């Protein structure tokens, strides 16, 4: 399973090209990628930056389970899930999910499944730093956050 799955929690910028290189597989004609980036707005207020806090000892195995579950559920060959922690500016990549598969239908569905499950279960939290200097933890149950 090792080389089919790449799961990482990182504190430095996520390098897309590196991740894509790791998904190379001559039998996979389709690759889908999802990137989550820090947006400049959330529910009507202006966001300056976001601090991501993780329960790392649990987040990593949960990300690993999601990767394995995705490989079991869809006929895909490889998956990469990376999440960044620490202080991120607007525009920086917070999460990456990439999937390689023979065909595009399953590549899209598997990638979507991966990011949906991450947003449900991975113990990572974001605290927004707003334009007025205030900071607040985002509660994923309220408002549009789960659509992010």
């Amino acid at each position: 399973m090792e080389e089919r799955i790449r799961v990482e929690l990182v504190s430095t910028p996520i390098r897309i090209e590196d991740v894509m290189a790791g998904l190379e597989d001559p039998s996979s004609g389709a690759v889908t990628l999802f990137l989550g980036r820090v947006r400049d707005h959330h529910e009507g207020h202006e966001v300056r930056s976001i601090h991501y806090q993780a329960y790392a000892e649990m987040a990593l195995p949960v990300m690993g389970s999601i990767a394995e579950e995705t490989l079991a559920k869809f006929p895909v060959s490889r998956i990469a899930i990376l999440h960044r922690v620490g202080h991120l500016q607007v525009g920086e990549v917070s999460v990456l999910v990439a999937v390689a598969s023979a065909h595009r239908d399953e590549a899209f569905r598997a990638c979507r499944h991966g990011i949906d499950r991450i947003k449900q279960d991975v113990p990572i939290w974001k605290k927004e730093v707003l334009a007025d200097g205030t900071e607040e933890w985002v509660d994923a149950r309220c408002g549009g956050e789960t659509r992010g």
Partner: protein
Amino acid sequence: MSSIRIRLFAVLRDRFGAEFVALDLAPGTTARALLQRLAVQYPDHARHLSTCRVAVNHRFASDTEVVAPEDEVALIPPVSGG
């Protein structure tokens, strides 16, 4: 009766002003009972505690899972990663 240290994150860590909260642990205490005991002991945080899931040894625990003193227990507020 033994005691257990419970890990706190995000909004709970800020509210408690600490990375851990200690709780006396009667034998046979379930994850759900642990959360209820905390809410009684810290009524100011009860509303936030009620939104948490309990993790035992890095996995989400069911309500009826029994917590042992040597377990790593954490409270997981609604996650907002991604």
